[in-house]
Structures are given as structure tokens and as C-alpha cells.
């Protein structure tokens, strides 16, 4: 038992040595363990550092997207412009295009300038006409917003209403620090004159930054109008896709898993299937995209860019994950429960459905939600079926359209924005990432809550 050969070495423990003194071997071992603990802490530290850096970058870059600059104006909705006939008929009012609304906004701005006594060359700018230097201050979609508001409530005609008019993206950039006086020197969208006016108006409280709900709920906008771009439609697209994934992959995955675990005979064929399922989980996601293109769009002729197709492709991607996690949950149910059920005279099917499945439910739910969360963030498979690059600018009308009308998805939308030139879109891309992360965190929290709720002691 004791190595007599080592006893000559000075560090070998003396027989009968005092417990109160640490011998050299123990000291070395303790030192090694302390060092290992430090390595572990350092590793955690590095991970935490990068996590914090990532979150910091996301938040600082993206939080700006949730605020939008606008002008608080009082617009006089002159009846002779908007309803020349004066008969209040909606068809006639609709004939008045945005072209006619522009002067109203310009006039309102001039009124503000006058009211606050701002000295600016723009106070001489013309109001009517196709274009005016004042237009550069507003979003090009502002007139459309005004027209929509009037058409929604024609009784407003003849009144003076308060409205927040969206500022143009350069003004917005100026407020947020993206745009500086030096940078606009080469920019044809805005001049120093405009910026002076904006400064004065900021001081007078006409130009304000406010919470931009439209970013979360609104549709995407074209290149020219980044200030109006929103995630809303693509969020719906993701939502419908997730519904498809949930209602297809959960039953199919769980059923396949139950069959493989409980009923499949132990032969080469079953082994082959199991090996392939594990491999499927490792297949690059773009391959699923090609598969989706070939099968769902070209063979089955489903509509392109539809959330239904996206959902189907993502189902194929999520299935292996769900099958593997379900199998792990089923395996973790102790066999004593199965034995007890069989001993009472339940058939195999009854034992599985009445006893094993309810106990495996927390694990299955967790696996499903994690699979869904992964699917939510996938972009590559959507590439080939047309959901990336599609400008999601229209809300789908109705549930069926929700599945079949072309749409985009959240990660795809983020990618789209990141590609565009305007730095305002860049900010929106970060904002979109924040929204996506909020979604993922919510799903994970739901997963944890569900698991706690269904956890049963056995």
C-alpha cells in the first residue's frame, strides 16, 4: 500500500505526520485546484464580457429606431382645396390627390415659423406648386398620412387640426446625431439653411422626438422613406410561419418519436432511421431552402414568398430537433412507471399515452419551444423561397391571406434593412434585432414557465 520506494523522497508523507501541517503533495494539489478555479472564472469572465459587449452594442445602436422625429403642426384643412364641390361626397374627396395636400403642410410650417418669429430665408419659400424647398424637411410619406387621415374622417375638412408630421430621414438623423453639418455639405437632400430652421424649431418645441410605435407595428417602406419603415408586417409573417411550424412539427415530431422509442422493432432499418435523424439536425439550413424551392414551390406550386411555404421549410428543419428532444424526455421517464401501468393491465399504447407522455411533457415542451425559437431566427432557408428581399409593405387581409399572401419574416427584414444604403435603415436593422431578441427571450421565458408548471415529481 505505501510505496517504500518513494519514502526516501523528502516530499513523501511521514507515517504518523501531524494532520495540522499540510504536506507538500497536498499543497501542490490545492494550488492546482485553485489555479483551475481561476481558469474557470476567467473563462466565464470572457464569455460574460462578450455578452455584455454584444448587448451594449445592440442596445445603443438600436434604441434610436424606437424614436422618431416629427413636427407638431397645426394644419388648416381648407375646404376649397380638399372638397372643391363642397358636397362632402367621399368619391370627390378621394379625387384630391396628395399633390393637393402638400401646400397645406407647407403653409402650416410657415405659420409656425411666423408664430415663433424665426428669422430664416425659408419663410419666403413658396407654398403651392409641385415642390418646394420646405419639402425637404418632411417625410415624403407625410402627405400620404395626412390624406389617409382626412379620408378616414371627412368631417375634419374645414377644421384646423393638430398633427404630428413625420420629419424626413435627414432631419431625424440630425436630431439623433447621425447627420452633422459637415456631412450635409455634400448631401443634396438638405442644406444648412434647413438645419438652422430645424435648430430654431427644436428650441421652440415644434420639432420633437417621440416614441415610434410605427416601427413596431407599421409596414416596411421603400428605400426613400426609411423614417416610415416598420417591422409590423414582417412580424405577422413570422407569426404565421411559427403557427405552421408549431402545428405541424409538434404532432409529427412527437408521434415519430413515440413510435421510434416505444413501438419500433430493434432492427437495422430502425437504426438507419435513427442515425439519419441525428444527421438531419446538422444539415445546413440553406439546403432546406433548396428543398423547399424544389418541392413546395416548383412541384406543389404553392405561392412564392408565402409564410405557408416558409413554415413548411422550417418545419422540416425543426423536426429533427423536436424528435431528438422528445426521445430524450421519453427515455428519462423511469421504466418503473411503464412497468406499473403494464402490471395493472394497460396495453402498451395506454401506458404510453396515459402515463409516459404526461411525464415527458415538460421536456417535450421545452424542446419544442427551443426549436421554435431557433426557427424564428432562421434566414437562409427563406432565401430561396423568396421571403428574403420581399418588401413587406402590405398587411395581409384575413387569415387565409396571412398564410398565402407573400410576406417576409423578421430576420429577413433585418437583413434587408442592413443591406440598404441609407444609414437610417442601418439604425432600423439594429432596432429590429432588439425586437427579435425580445421575442426570443419571451419564448424562452414561456418555456421555463411551462416546464415549471408541468413538472411533476415521480
Amino acid at each position, binding site marked *: 500500500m505505501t510505496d517504500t520506494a518513494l519514502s526516501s523522497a523528502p516530499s513523501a508523507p511521514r507515517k504518523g505526520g501531524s494532520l495540522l501541517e499540510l504536506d507538500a503533495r497536498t499543497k501542490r494539489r490545492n494550488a492546482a485546484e485553485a489555479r483551475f478555479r481561476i481558469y474557470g472564472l476567467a473563462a466565464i469572465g470572457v464569455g460574460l464580457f462578450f455578452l455584455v459587449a454584444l448587448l451594449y452594442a445592440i442596445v445603443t445602436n438600436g434604441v434610436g429606431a424606437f424614436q422618431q422625429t416629427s413636427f407638431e403642426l397645426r394644419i388648416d384643412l381648407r375646404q376649397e382645396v380638399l372638397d372643391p364641390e363642397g358636397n362632402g361626397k367621399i368619391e370627390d374627396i378621394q379625387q384630391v390627390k396628395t399633390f393637393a395636400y402638400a401646400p397645406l403642410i407647407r403653409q402650416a410650417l410657415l405659420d409656425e415659423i411666423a408664430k415663433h418669429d424665426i428669422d430664416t430665408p425659408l419663410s419666403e419659400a413658396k407654398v403651392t406648386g409641385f415642390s418646394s424647398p420646405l419639402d425637404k424637411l418632411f417625410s415624403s410619406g407625410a402627405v400620404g398620412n395626412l390624406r389617409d387621415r382626412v379620408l378616414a374622417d371627412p368631417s375634419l375638412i374645414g377644421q384646423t387640426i393638430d398633427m404630428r408630421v413625420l420629419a424626413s430621414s435627414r432631419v431625424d438623423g440630425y436630431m439623433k446625431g447621425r447627420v452633422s453639418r459637415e456631412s450635409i455639405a455634400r448631401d443634396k437632400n438638405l442644406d444648412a439653411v434647413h438645419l438652422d430652421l430645424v435648430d430654431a424649431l427644436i428650441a421652440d418645441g415644434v420639432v420633437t422626438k417621440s416614441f415610434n410605435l410605427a416601427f413596431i407595428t407599421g409596414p416596411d417602406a421603400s428605400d426613400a422613406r426609411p423614417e416610415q419603415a416598420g417591422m409590423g408586417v414582417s412580424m405577422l409573417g413570422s407569426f404565421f410561419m411559427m403557427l405552421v411550424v408549431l402545428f405541424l412539427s409538434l404532432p409529427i415530431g412527437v408521434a415519430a418519436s413515440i413510435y421510434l422509442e416505444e413501438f419500433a422493432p430493434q432492427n437495422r432499418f430502425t437504426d438507419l432511421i435513427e442515425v439519419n435523424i441525428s444527421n438531419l439536425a446538422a444539415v445546413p439550413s440553406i439546403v432546406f431552402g433548396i428543398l423547399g424551392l424544389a418541392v413546395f414551390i416548383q412541384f406543389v406550386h404553392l405561392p412564392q414568398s408565402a409564410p405557408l411555404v416558409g413554415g413548411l421549410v422550417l418545419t422540416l428543419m425543426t423536426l429533427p430537433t423536436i424528435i431528438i428532444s422528445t426521445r430524450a424526455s421519453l427515455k428519462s421517464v*423511469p421504466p418503473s412507471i411503464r412497468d*406499473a401501468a*403494464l402490471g395493472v393491465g*394497460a396495453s402498451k399504447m395506454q401506458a404510453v399515452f396515459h402515463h409516459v407522455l404526461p411525464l415527458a411533457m415538460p421536456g417535450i415542451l421545452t424542446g419544442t419551444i427551443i426549436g421554435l425559437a431557433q426557427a424564428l431566427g432562421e434566414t437562409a432557408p427563406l432565401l430561396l423561397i423568396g421571403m428574403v428581399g420581399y418588401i413587406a409593405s402590405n398587411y395581409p387581409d384575413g387569415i387565409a391571406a396571412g398564410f398565402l399572401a407573400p410576406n417576409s419574416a423578421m430576420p429577413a427584414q433585418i437583413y434587408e434593412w442592413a443591406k440598404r444604403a441609407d444609414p437610417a435603415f442601418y439604425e432600423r436593422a439594429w432596432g429590429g434585432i432588439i425586437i427579435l431578441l425580445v421575442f426570443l427571450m419571451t419564448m424562452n421565458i414561456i418555456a421555463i414557465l411551462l416546464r415549471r408548471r408541468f413538472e411533476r415529481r415521480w
Partner: protein
Amino acid sequence: MYDTPDLERTTVTQEVKISARNCQVFYGETHAIKDVDVDIEDKTVTAFIGPSGCGKSTFLRCLNRMNDTIDICRVEGTILLDKEDIYDPKVDPVQLRAKVGMVFQKPNPFPKSIYDNIAYGPKIHGMARSRADLDEIVEKSLRRGALWDEVKDRLKEPGTGLSGGQQQRLCIARAVATEPEVLLMDEPCSALDPIATAQVEELIDELREQYSVVIVTHSMQQAARVSQKTAFFHLGNLVEYGETGQIFTNPKDKRTESYITGRIG
């Protein structure tokens, strides 16, 4: 002057409930049970004893076809329950297991309420037509399991919240709920402390008035305390089968004597 209680040992033989002839069990290539012939009597506690790996649990599991769940297990020979061959292809194991109940080594109540634990078996066998019927079955079973008084006002609580001995009695009550004729018990007390063990043994003594009980135990002392007939298994063979008092005071086979006195493992 003093009344002598009736000393007549139940040498009256009960009728045979399960009869095995020439029984063999193979696990793949391994011959686990060899040439077992045994007659298990009704209203009697029969104990299977023997060293680890001797095949007593394997043979027990043949009696309610639990070995069917193991793919590589093959059973040959005849096992008759009330003169019907339980391995006949026409027999559905599910129906058999309603007649032959089983209690396992580790108490395994379902993670449901106490009521649902007992009610599950009768429900899937269609034994109750109404809620009142089910209530009655649950009460009857819990009384037979010597558990009613302890749990009658907490039937909705989870079965897993009971103590170890109570859980095992719950499993026994669950097994008798399907009105079986035979009760198989695979080392039912090995996970219990001595007091709980004594309670279960007293329960087994009461149960034998109605059922044929077969109990596998690695404790010879328990077999001695609880059974009327004992079968000694060794290396897959049934070495000796006889009345418990005789086996433990004067066994006929040398191997039995060696095992009982602790000379062979």
C-alpha cells in the same frame, strides 16, 4: 386448565391455481430457467427464494407475461392458470394482467392523486359504470390494502406524497383494485424500513385469505415469516419446493440446507 389454540398446521392442501410444467426461459442464447415444474396453490403465500441471479424474478415475471416486454426473452413449456395455458396465442396479455396483478420492488405509484392511482386499472378494464361505482372500488381496494384509514380524507393528494411503506401499500391496493386472482410480488419490502416491512407482511397475511400470493424475496427470513410454501431456486433450477416449516427446519436437498444456513451464496 388452559385452552390450547388449534395447532393443526394447514396441511390441508388448497387447490392448485397456477401450474407450470417443463418451463424454460431463454434470454437470447442464455438458458435462464431450466425445467421448472411447480404447482402454486390458491389462498396460500408461496415464496421464491434463492441467491442473486438464480432466476426467481424471471420466473415470476413469466406468470403474468411481463417478460413479453423484453424482446430477447423466449418462454417455452406450459404455464396453466386455472387450467388455461397463459401462453396460448389467443390470450391477450392485457387481460391476463388484470387477473394476475403485480407489485414491484420499488414502490411506483403513478404521479397522480391517490384516488386516480387506484381508479386507473378499473377504468381501463371497464369495471365501473358510474362515478359511485368507482368510489366504491377505490374504498374497497384501499381497505384491503390496509390504507383506507390513513388516507380516506386526502384522496386527492398525490400518491407520491406518502411514506415508503404507505406507497407500497398503495401499490398493493392498486393491484387488488382490478379484482385479480393471483398477486405477484417482486421483493416488495426490499426498499422499506423494518416497521413498514412488518406492516406489509401483516397485509400479505390478510390477503392470502382471498388471493394466491407469490412473493419473490432475497430475504430468507422474510420467506420464513410470511409464506406457507417455499420454492428454492438455484442457477435456474427449482431445487426444492415444500411447506415452509419443513424447508426451514429440515430441508430435503443438501443445496437448500447450504443456502438456508448461509453456506453458499
